[in-house]
């Protein structure tokens, strides 16, 4: 299985619908244009498509679904 680190390990929820959208933080530019390295609170990283929100800055929190950032998130309170 070539699932990324944020694929649901329990198989408990479906990744094709909304509730697998994950809050991740941008930590570095990606290897290709339109991609960024993003990490979850535990520090697990993956490369995310960010073209829909470009430009994104290191430190921003994004909502990521199926490998693509679909919305910006505010800061944790």
């Amino acid at each position, binding site marked *: 299985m070539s699932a990324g680190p944020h694929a649901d390990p329990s198989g408990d929820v479906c990744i094709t619908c909304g509730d697998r*959208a994950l809050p991740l933080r941008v930590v570095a530019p990606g290897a290709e244009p339109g991609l960024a390295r993003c990490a979850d609170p535990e520090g697990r990283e993956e490369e995310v498509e960010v073209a829909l929100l470009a430009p994104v800055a290191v430190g921003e929190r994004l909502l990521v679904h199926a490998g693509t950032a679909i919305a910006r998130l505010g800061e944790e309170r």
Partner: protein
Amino acid sequence: MRYVEEFRDPELGRALAARILSLVEPGRRRKLMEVCGGHTHVIYRYAIDELLPDEVEMVHGPGCPVCVIPMGRVDDGIAIAAREEVVLACFGDMMRVPGSERSLQEAKAAGADVRVVYSPLDALRIARAEPEREVVFFAIGFETTAPSTALTLKRARAEGLTNFSCFCNHVLIEPPLRALLSSPDLEIDGFVGPGHVATIVGARAFDFVAAEYRRPLVVSGFEPLDVLQSVEMAMLQLAEGRCEVENQYGRVVAPDGNPAALAAMAEVFEPRETFEWRGLGEIERSALRLSGAYADLDAERRFELPGARVADPVECQCGEVLKGAIKPWECRVFGTACTPERAIGTCMVSPEGACAAYYNYGRLSRQEQPA
């Protein structure tokens, strides 16, 4: 993880449940449909339905993309996967969806090269790494997922990849909602709207529900308190005789959605004249195919497909479950012939399917309740 915990605080949940109870009119039953399978899952995982008063009934809508895919399309995907040169890449949930004869998982066991991916971009990476193989991405999902597929196809085009294509099964949220709302026997008083589809299409895209069909809709987030608050907002509208589209998920959803995502979809896709939905039948302009500009990346044009329309098994009542006409446990094969391990119907396959959600979280207590 303070952020998440705040949205799962049991005390706040009980306070919201008390407010909902205060909005109930004695003896008047209200049915609210949660459109999205993600919400169905949250409702059963956190037992939100048990917090609600008897007068508020949650009805599960058609918003799980795995649950609505017709058998004939699964058969088409299996026919593609059976080709010697093909790697079929799909989301994990598609693997167990039954086709007329077998599932993708069974096709894989029989030798087909079917691989589970987490994103369309992962499928593209396989095509890059294995240029001698034909890689086909089995695309499913509503507007939440379609932009991701669109961006990957744009990337494939820019790179000039010739061994990558897309078997497109993306669907749209508005046409099935209109089909449900136009049904003469509809008994839905209001809606908990799909928050992440709205991230793309915008909260305003649901205005037609209130304006044309006179039902309140509250766009909702996916934490337990989000869903409870959305139910409270919908109940308040009903109690006050209002009928509006409200946005409970304003921390993420903008009124007009994500314009870049909508532009990418408009470039890469075009509406199909009609598409078959499991349980709902053919619905006009309810699904997407690749646009003319991307026709060379369309697996339906690259490969010959059976394209047969396959009737659901007679014992399966997914259609009635998807329309909210019956509860999962009222289906004649629920939990007996049809289980998550060996599903007859799609609603039992995806963890977001209403039947699987009931089976996994609430089967024993609910089966004993009167229908």
